[in-house]
């Protein structure tokens, strides 16, 4: 069984004011097919964790490790990580002017599979996935994320999740900025992907509402760069009622 494991991860970024420590010893283990929710206040380092796993050059790993089935992910380039089966649905997907969605998807699929997918079945698969996500066909002719609304960008991320079939996916606030209908559509897409491929999920969110549609097996409360508490789905219910105050007070006392 496939396992993504984060051990005692310390991460910093360079800022104008100097080096800033963001992650201060993160431990996590996600097995294939599991869904882990990471919940925490803004600024606690959730995106930093996501970007660090994906290999964003801005984040410096001071110590610790990230392994995928025992292999050190930190030694891999960004694209090697993707080819090893890691996927990050970004909180703020960037626009790529002049690159059409259809061309981008095919290039990514080709890069991941090592060969170009057969054209007919591929187009059928893309169209099917777009339809399921209620995306207009015209999207494939548009430039990646250019002029997309917030909700369209998120759908486009989940479209890639369904088509590229990673082993582990990190969804960074995929729920933020979505209305209820869009949230359902996107959640269904994530659930479909998980059923189809046995995907391991790291679901980063600020709010509990997405957890109504995507059921977590584990919930981790993330505060000030580390996991402050973990438990089962019931922990999310508690956060829903109590908010993060309890944890914030804890850390300020500590």
């Amino acid at each position, binding site marked *: 069984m496939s396992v993504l494991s984060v051990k005692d991860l310390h991460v910093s970024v360079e800022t104008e004011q100097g080096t800033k420590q963001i992650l201060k010893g993160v431990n996590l283990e996600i097995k294939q097919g599991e869904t882990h929710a990471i919940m925490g206040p803004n600024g606690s380092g959730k995106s930093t964790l996501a970007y660090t796993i*994906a*290999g*964003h*050059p*801005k984040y410096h790993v001071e110590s610790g490790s990230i392994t995928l089935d025992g292999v050190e992910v930190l030694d891999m*380039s*960004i*694209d090697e*990580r*993707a*080819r090893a089966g890691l*996927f*990050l649905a*970004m909180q703020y*997907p*960037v*626009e*790529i*002017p*002049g*690159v059409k969605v259809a061309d*981008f998807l095919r*290039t*990514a699929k080709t*890069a*991941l599979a090592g060969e170009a997918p057969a054209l007919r079945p591929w187009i059928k698969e893309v169209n099917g996935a777009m339809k399921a996500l209620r995306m207009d066909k015209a999207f494939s002719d548009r*430039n990646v994320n250019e002029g997309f609304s917030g909700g369209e960008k998120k759908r486009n991320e989940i479209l*890639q999740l369904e088509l*590229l079939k990673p082993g582990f996916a990190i969804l960074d606030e995929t729920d933020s900025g979505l209305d209820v209908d869009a949230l359902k559509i996107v959640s269904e897409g994530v659930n479909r992907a998980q059923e189809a491929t046995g995907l391991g999920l790291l679901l980063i969110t600020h709010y509990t509402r997405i957890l109504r549609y995507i059921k977590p097996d584990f919930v981790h409360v993330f505060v000030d760069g580390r996991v402050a508490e973990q438990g089962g789905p019931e922990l999310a219910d508690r956060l829903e009622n109590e908010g993060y105050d309890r944890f914030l007070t804890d850390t300020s006392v500590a």
Partner: protein
Amino acid sequence: MTVVTPEQHGLTAHSDGGWDASEKGFVPVQTRSARPQSFEHTDFAPVNGLEAEWKLTPVKLIKPLLDDALDGAPYAIDTEAPEGISVEWVARDDSRIASAGAPEERASANAWTNFEQALAITITGEEHSTVRISRAELGSTARAGHIVITARPHSNGTVIVESTGSALLSENVEVVVEEGATLNFVSVQDWADDAIHLASHFVQVGRSATLKHTIVSLGGKVVRVNPSVHLSGEGADGELYGLYFADAGQHLEQRVYLHHEAAQTRGRVSYKGALQGTGARTVWVGDVLIGPHAAGTDSYEQNRNLVLTEGTRADSIPNLEIETGDIQGAGHASATGRFDDEQLFYLQARGISESEARRLVVIGFLSEIVQKVGDEQLEARLHTAIEAELEGTIS
């Protein structure tokens, strides 16, 4: 519309700004429309390279075009004119000539003084048709050229002029888009490595007429194409696009002037360039003038340059002059930079290698202009040309 006839020799200037250096502490301001104009070579002083007009250009390399007598005879072209468009060589006294503007600098005036016949392209058909003109055999003789494109009222056409091979050419291109006409004009400079080409485009867009004007400069040692576009009729619409890719040792320059002269005109200027290799050099100057009668103007201009390697230089100078308060909107943007790390990260996070990601980003960046060209055959050819420019150079 300001019409200057060839009889008006000598330097003429219609000025509302003007020079007045005698006043103490006064900084000379010259509004863009007040530049001296003349059809006579000798009316312009020899160029020393310090002039605002020339200081960014390698004047040593273009000396013959500035100073020498030029061969103004017709040259070989390859074309097939469809129904609704005529292509012919015409004499200097043809009525279509000198209807769009007059030279504002010495190389342009030298071409005007020396050309013997003009290549006249006239669009009359109301059904859209396309004419492709290619010229490939200009050779190393110092030449003067003249092209005059006339889109008759309510006509609709695409004119594509493609240049390849060697050249030492100074030319003027006149474009008149008459009332209600729609013209798509594309000038592709894909010259050989040793070519030197200076061009001034004088463009008048009439009442309710629509112009799309695209400059693509890929090949040549020195290529300087300066379009001056006057939205001179009410409701005129002008979209000016440019695409350039400078390699090591290439100088690609474009000085764009968009003049909102009449009311309710709309103008868009978008030029994008890529630079790679030591000594790759580009210049973009974008002057937009919204005149006193241009109420309701809607204008936007931008230039973006993507720097692919060390050792390049891109100048990007936007200018906006507004002489009426009653406009809908006007803006400009200019940016020169390296790859956007976030774009590369996004692509790489999908498994795409760094080199492939860079290739996609550059092609995508330039494709924005290619997508505007509006001719499938040419778009495909430009994609191939851009791929070729990138071949093996991005690592």
